[in-house]
C-alpha cells in the first residue's frame, strides 16, 4: 500500500480513454462500477471537449456481484454497438472489474460483433495512465494493421520516382500537453519540407485511418510515452523507420529536421532557419542578461523534462539544479540527462518528495507540472508549466505549441514571463517610499501567475481596483496562510465550486526551518530591514542561507554583518 495525497497519473484505463477519446469511430466498453464515469469530466471540463468520451461503463453494483456481471458486460457491449455503430471497439476492465475476473475480451468475442474488437489487459494495480495509453495504442495498431502487413522477410519496395515522401505522426492523445497545436506545427514543418502526412494517430484518426499506417515511408514519433511501442512494432512489421529526436527547443527542432530529411531523402537546408524563430535572438539580446545562471528545477514527463532541461541549459543560459520525472518507465532517459547537467535525478511519483526537493534546492524557477506550480506558489518561487498532468489552463484558446520553432517562441515567453514579473515587482518595490505607492502593496504576480493582467497597470491603480494580493511577498521558511482560491485567473470549473469550502491548511510539509531543533533565528531589526531591500524573489533564499550560516556558527543574533558574511559565503 502506498500513501498518496496527489497523483501525477491516473490508472491505466484513463490512458486507454485518452486514446479512445482522441479518435473517431472507436468505442470503449469498460467494465466498471458506478463512479468511474468521473473520468468523462476530465475530457469535457479540462480539455473542454464538445462531445462525451466514447466510453460505455457497465456500472455494476454490489448486488450484481453475486449474480451475473458477465451478462451485464455482454448486454452493455451489445447495446453500445447498436447505439454508436463504431468501426472498432476496445473492451477492458477498470481496477474493480479486474478483481472480479469476468474476462471482457472473451465475453466480447462471444458476441461475434461484425467489427474488430480489441481486448485490453491493463493491470490497474501495477501500471498507470501513460503505460495504459501506450499499451492501448499498440494493441489497437497491431489489431488493425496486421491484416495489411507484408509477409515476414519482404523488403519494402522503394518509393516510386517523383512521389513525395509520406509519413505518419504518432502519439498525440486526448488530454495531452499542447498536442493539438504540436500536430499543426509539425505538420506544417513536414509539409514545407516536401513530405506528405499519411495519418496522424491517435488524435483525430478513425480505425480505418489506423489500418492505413503501413502505407507511409516512416513514422514521426511525437510522444514516445504513447507511441514508442507502436512505432517499434511498425518498424518490425512494415520496415518503417521512426524518428528519435523530439522537436522541442530550437536545437532539437534543427536536429529533428535533419533526422527527418535523412529518412525522407529530402534537402533540409531551407528549413533549418525559420524567419519566425525569435527565441534565439531574444535570448542573445542584452535585456536577457539577467537570465544568466538562474537556477531551475525541471520536473515532468520524461520527454518534456529532458527537452526543457536542454532548452534551459543551452538556449536560455540557466543552471539546471535538478531534473526529474514521475514516470518510472522513462527513468533511464532522465538519469542520462541528469549526467549532462551533473545533478542528482529525481525519479518519484510522490508529490511530497518532489516538494521536499524543491524546498531544499531553493531554485529561482520551477519548470514542472501543475502540481509543481502549486508547490512553487507555496514556496514563493516563479514557475512555468512544461508537462502533463494537464489543467484547464494548459488548453489555451490561442495557438501555443511546444514543438518546432513556434513552440520555442512560446516556451521562451512562458518561462521568461514569471521571471520578468518578479523583476518588475522589484522595480516597483524600489519606489515604495514614493507617496503615490502603497507601502503594504505586495507582489501581485505570485497570486496571479500566468494571468499577466498586473503587468500593465501601475501599482497604486491595482491596489485601488482591489487586484492586489493583500499580503507582502511570501518568504520561504515562514509558515503562512496558504492561498487556495485566489488563483482565480482561469480556474478549473470544478475548482470554482470547491474553492469556497477549500481554504486550505498550512502544514509542516513546506516549512524546512520549523523542525531544526532548539536554535531559533533571531534577526536584528537592522538586519531584518536590510533583508527587506533584497528583491523578494531572492529574499527567501537570502533568509534561508543567512539563517543556515548563523545556525552553523550558533550565532545568538543575526546582524547586518551576518547577512553579508553569509552572502559572501554562499555567493555563486
Amino acid at each position: 500500500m502506498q500513501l498518496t495525497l496527489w497523483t501525477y497519473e491516473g490508472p491505466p484505463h484513463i490512458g486507454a480513454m485518452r486514446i479512445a477519446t482522441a479518435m473517431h469511430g472507436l468505442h470503449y466498453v469498460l467494465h466498471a462500477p458506478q463512479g468511474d464515469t468521473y473520468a468523462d469530466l476530465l475530457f469535457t471540463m479540462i480539455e473542454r471537449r464538445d462531445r462525451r468520451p466514447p466510453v460505455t461503463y457497465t456500472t455494476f453494483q454490489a448486488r450484481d456481484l453475486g449474480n451475473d456481471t458477465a451478462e451485464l458486460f455482454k448486454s452493455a457491449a451489445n447495446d453500445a454497438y447498436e447505439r454508436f455503430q463504431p468501426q472498432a471497439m476496445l473492451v477492458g476492465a477498470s481496477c474493480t472489474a479486474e478483481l472480479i475476473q469476468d474476462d471482457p475480451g472473451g465475453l466480447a468475442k462471444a458476441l461475434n460483433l461484425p467489427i474488430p474488437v480489441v481486448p485490453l489487459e491493463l493491470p490497474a494495480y501495477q501500471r498507470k495512465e501513460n503505460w495504459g495509453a501506450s499499451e492501448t495504442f499498440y494493441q489497437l495498431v497491431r489489431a488493425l494493421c496486421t491484416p495489411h502487413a507484408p509477409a515476414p522477410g519482404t523488403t519494402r519496395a522503394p518509393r516510386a520516382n517523383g512521389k513525395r515522401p509520406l509519413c505518419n505522426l504518432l502519439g498525440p492523445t486526448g488530454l495531452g500537453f499542447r498536442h493539438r497545436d504540436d500536430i499543426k506545427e509539425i505538420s506544417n514543418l513536414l509539409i514545407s519540407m516536401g513530405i506528405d502526412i499519411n495519418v496522424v494517430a491517435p488524435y483525430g484518426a478513425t480505425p480505418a485511418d489506423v489500418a492505413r499506417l503501413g502505407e507511409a515511408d516512416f513514422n514521426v514519433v511525437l510522444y514516445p510515452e504513447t507511441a514508442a511501442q507502436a512505432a517499434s512494432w511498425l518498424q518490425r512489421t512494415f520496415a518503417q523507420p521512426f524518428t528519435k529526436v523530439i522537436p522541442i527547443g530550437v536545437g532539437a527542432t534543427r536536429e529533428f529536421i535533419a533526422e527527418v530529411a535523412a529518412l525522407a531523402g529530402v534537402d533540409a537546408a531551407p528549413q533549418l532557419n525559420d524567419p519566425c524563430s525569435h527565441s534565439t535572438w531574444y535570448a542573445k539580446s542584452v535585456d536577457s542578461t539577467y537570465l544568466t545562471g538562474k537556477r531551475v528545477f525541471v520536473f515532468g514527463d520524461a520527454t518534456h523534462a529532458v527537452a526543457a532541461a536542454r532548452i534551459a541549459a543551452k538556449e536560455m543560459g540557466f543552471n539546471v539544479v535538478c531534473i526529474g520525472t514521475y514516470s518510472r518507465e522513462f527513468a533511464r532517459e532522465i538519469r542520462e540527462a541528469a549526467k549532462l547537467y551533473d545533478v542528482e535525478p529525481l525519479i518519484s511519483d510522490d508529490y511530497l518528495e518532489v516538494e521536499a526537493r524543491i524546498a531544499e534546492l531553493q531554485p529561482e524557477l520551477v519548470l514542472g507540472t501543475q502540481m509543481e506550480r502549486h508547490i512553487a506558489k507555496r514556496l514563493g518561487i516563479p514557475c512555468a508549466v512544461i508537462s502533463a498532468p494537464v489543467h484547464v489552463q494548459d488548453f489555451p484558446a490561442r495557438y501555443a505549441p511546444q514543438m518546432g520553432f513556434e513552440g520555442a517562441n512560446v516556451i521562451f515567453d512562458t518561462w521568461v514571463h514569471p521571471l520578468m514579473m518578479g523583476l518588475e515587482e522589484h522595480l516597483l518595490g524600489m519606489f515604495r517610499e514614493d507617496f503615490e505607492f502603497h507601502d503594504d502593496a505586495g507582489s501581485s504576480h505570485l497570486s496571479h501567475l500566468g494571468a499577466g493582467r498586473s503587468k500593465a497597470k501601475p501599482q497604486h491603480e491595482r491596489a485601488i481596483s482591489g487586484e492586489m494580493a493583500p499580503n507582502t511577498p511570501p518568504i520561504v521558511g515562514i509558515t503562512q496562510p496558504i492561498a487556495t482560491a485566489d488563483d482565480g485567473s482561469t480556474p478549473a470549473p470544478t475548482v470554482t465550486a470547491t474553492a469556497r469550502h477549500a481554504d486550505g491548511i498550512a502544514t509542516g510539509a513546506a516549512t524546512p526551518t520549523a523542525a531544526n531543533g532548539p536554535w531559533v533565528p533571531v534577526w536584528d531589526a537592522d538586519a531584518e530591514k536590510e533583508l527587506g531591500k533584497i528583491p523578494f524573489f531572492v529574499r527567501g533564499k537570502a533568509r534561508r542561507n543567512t539563517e543556515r550560516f548563523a545556525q552553523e556558527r550558533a550565532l545568538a543574533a543575526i546582524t547586518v554583518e551576518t547577512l553579508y558574511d553569509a552572502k559572501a559565503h554562499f555567493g555563486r
Partner: protein
Amino acid sequence: MSVALESGRADTKIIPILKERGQREVFCGLTGIIWLHRKIQDAFFLVVGSRTCAHLIQSAAGVMIFAEPRFATAIIDERDLAGLADANEELDRVVKRLLERRPDIKLLFLVGSCPSEVIKLDLSRAAQRLSAQFTPSVRVLNYSGSGIETTFTQGEDACLASLVPTLSSAPADAPTTLMIVGTLADVVEDQWTRLFNEMGVHNVSYFPPRRSTELPRIGPNTRYLLAQPFLADTARALEERGAQRLPAPFPLGVEGTTEWLRAAANMFGVSTDTFDAVTMPKRERALRALQRQRPQLEGKRIFFFPDSQLEIPIARFLSRELGMLLTEVGTPFLHKQHLAEEMAMMPAGVQISEGQHVENQIDRCRSAKPDLVVCGLGLANPLEAEGMTTKWAIELVFTPIQGYDQAADLAELFARPLSRHLRLVA
C-alpha cells in the same frame, strides 16, 4: 437494464416514477470527502482503494487545493492482492505514518472503496484495532464510499451513520433537544441558530459538528430535523438511539425553510405569533430577493439528470416559488418517507425518474427540448455543444443554498446560465 413504472402516492396526486438501470453518470460516495473534510476540521479521511479512487477525488476536487489536504488514499497494489504483503499490516503502517505527520488529527475515517469491498478487506476490524492503538488521541472509524454501494451524497450518509454510535447518551430525563442533521455551510448554521434562539429554542445542535470533540449527545428526548434529503442510513441509526425525526420538507426556498422551521417550532411549543414575528421579516426579505430572479426563470422548462438527491426539493422550489415548468426530475434514489412532504408539494404531471440509464435519458432530454438542463460535469459541455443550456449539478452541493438568506442565491444559480446565454452573441 430494466425499466419499471411504479406509482408513488403523494396525498391525492399519483406521480409516476420511472425506475431505470443502466450506465450512471454520477460520482461515487467517495466524493463526499471533499465537503466532509472541510466541515469536520479535525478529521482525516483515508480512502483504502486504488489509483482510480485517488484520481477520482483529485479530479472532483480539482487539483487546486494547494495545501496538504486532510484526505489521502492508501493505494492497494499488486503485493497486497497477491498476499505477498499482509494488507492489514500495510494499512497499520500507512496509518501510523499518516498520524505521525498529522498530530492535529483527532478523528480518522478509513473509507472503503470498490476494490476494498470486493477483496473483502475488513475495515471495521481495522478501525477497532487502530482505535485501540491510538486511543485516546485519535478515534478511528470506518465507512464505505464505494461506487458499488453508494451514489455521490450517499457517502455523507454512510459517514454520518458511522459516527452515530460514537455519540454519547443523554440521560432519559434530559430536556428535549433539537439536532439538525446533514452537512451545512457554517453561515447557514449560524443563521438558524439565531432564528431558533429568537423563538426561544436554545437546545440546538448540529450533526456533524465542526470539530469531532463537539459531537452532540443523543437519547429518547432528541428530536431531529434532516437538513439534507440523502441521509437514510443516518436517520435509521439515530432512531436506533431513540431520536425521533420531525417530518418536514427540506429547507430550500422560502416555503421549504418556513415549513422546516415550523416543524421544530411546533415541537418546542413556539406560538404561531412568535414564529411569525421571528420569521416574517426574513421571509419577506427572501421573497423580495427572489422576485429579482423570477423574470428570468418563470415559464422556463427545466430537466434534471440525477446527481445528489437534492433534485426533488429543488424542483419543488423552482416550480412553486419561481414558476419554472418541470419536465423530468431525475434523482439517483428516492426515499419515500423522508420525501413524503416534498412529493405532496410537487406539481401534477411531472415525470420523476429514479436511477439512471444515461443514454435513454439523454434521448428523452433531447426530445423534451428544455430551456435548462441540470446535469453533471461529464455531460454539461457536450449538451451545450448540442445547443442546450446547462447548470452543473455539483455546484448545488458545494454552495450554501439552504435557508432564507440563500434562497435567492439558489435561484440565481439557475438564472445565471440562462442570462449568460442571452448575453453571448458571437
